[in-house]
């Protein structure tokens, strides 16, 4: 069955305050940002929602703000805005790369960071980068605002800490300074437009020949985007030139829980996740 616009209604608030009030008055209304995710199941008749909360016009949710210690993105910051932002390119290259491989230009011109997070797909392209940069989310309701580590946000497949009256309003990234190592690689069926089979992002800092700081995150290998904490632990404090690859690979296999689905198999995903980790470590040695 095709989607049925004639059965659906849309609430279009003029301010964030009004949006939050509507969130309370109509908890059944599905928040709608750029539509690049939701319009696909909607048009195919696979979305049960009949009422939508249109956030697209809310200027309060737009824009990238840079201060000394951090960068703050409104939830409606578009992939395209991230991709062309000079400071983002310099300091958060993983996020820029993941924004650039989200769909193609027309998707990047419409899809938003907040939407990507709220949609909760384990295959979303930006979450692994957001995880390795230790980002935090501001969740806002009429009750007030709270900041939560993004690493805690997803609690299961398409489940999250977001309360029914809340909206994601800001995404905050602490600036890491220079000298770090950044790695992002997405494996999909083709370069553009593909949904990932596996993606891996990493950020590291080395010194005295050791891996002093390391964060690794993956997409499409668990019910949600995850940090690979076991693999991180196996590598932290160890030699950059001769890291314990086998131990790290073994720990990684315990960190992930991929499934067979229409895009790939669990077996392929386990193999490729290990290959990406090894590729990352090769990059770290030569960085």
């Amino acid at each position, binding site marked *: 069955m095709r989607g049925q616009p004639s059965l659906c209604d849309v609430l279009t608030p003029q301010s964030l305050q009004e949006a939050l009030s509507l969130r309370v008055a109509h908890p059944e209304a599905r928040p709608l940002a750029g539509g690049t995710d939701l319009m696909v199941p909607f048009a195919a008749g696979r979305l049960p929602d009949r009422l939508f909360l249109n956030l697209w016009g809310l200027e309060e949710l737009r824009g990238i703000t840079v201060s000394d210690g951090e960068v703050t993105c409104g939830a409606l910051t578009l992939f395209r805005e991230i991709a062309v932002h000079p400071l983002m390119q310099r300091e958060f290259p993983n996020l820029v790369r993941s924004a650039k491989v989200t769909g*193609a230009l027309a998707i990047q011109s419409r899809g938003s960071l907040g939407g990507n997070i709220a949609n909760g797909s384990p295959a979303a392209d930006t979450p692994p980068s957001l995880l390795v940069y230790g980002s935090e989310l501001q969740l806002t309701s009429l009750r007030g605002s709270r900041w939560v580590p993004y690493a805690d946000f997803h609690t299961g497949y398409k489940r999250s800490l977001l309360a029914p009256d809340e909206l994601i309003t800001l995404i905050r990234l602490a600036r890491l300074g220079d000298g770090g190592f950044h790695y992002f690689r997405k494996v999909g069926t083709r370069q553009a437009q593909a949904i990932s089979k596996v993606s891996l992002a990493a950020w590291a800092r080395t010194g005295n020949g050791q891996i002093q700081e390391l964060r690794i995150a993956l997409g499409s290998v668990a019910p949600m985007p995850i940090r690979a904490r076991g693999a991180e632990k196996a590598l932290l404090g160890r030699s950059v030139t001769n890291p314990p690859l086998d131990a790290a690979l073994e720990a990684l296999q315990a960190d992930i829980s991929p499934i067979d689905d229409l895009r790939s198999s669990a077996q392929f995903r386990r193999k490729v996740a290990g290959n990406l980790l090894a590729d990352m470590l090769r990059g770290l040695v030569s960085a």
Partner: protein
Amino acid sequence: MATQKIPLELTVNGEARQALVHPMARLLDVIREDFGLTGTKEGCGEGECGACSVILDGSLVNACLVPAVQAQGSTLRTVEGLAGVDLSPLQEAFLHHGGAQCGFCTPGMLVAGTHLLETDAVQDEAKAREGLSGNLCRCTGYVKIVDALLAAREGRS
């Protein structure tokens, strides 16, 4: 129970247009069925193929993924708006280089290509291919399309 339609007002190819539509109607259907502009094609209907590419407030978008309500008050350009009295340089280049075969992807290719040219995003062949990567063509193998885009950029037809 059917919901209320909304009066949608847009500037389409330079002309003020109105339609009474359901707010979650796809902009693609509004363009084709309400405005009668059938140059914009539906391919996949899920943002993969680019056949429905249009320029909305200066951004390249897939019209199949935009709910009508989000286009309220916008400025829209479709393939019908690319030519003036004469074909645009990009359209001429498509003719000259054989950039169209079955023709189904061509409106989307022309709209995306026009957007890339206008935003100076066709510095070289790699950039041209990256820019068009959201537009699928099953006939040409892309070479002639990319040739046409690069020729138009250099002011050749």
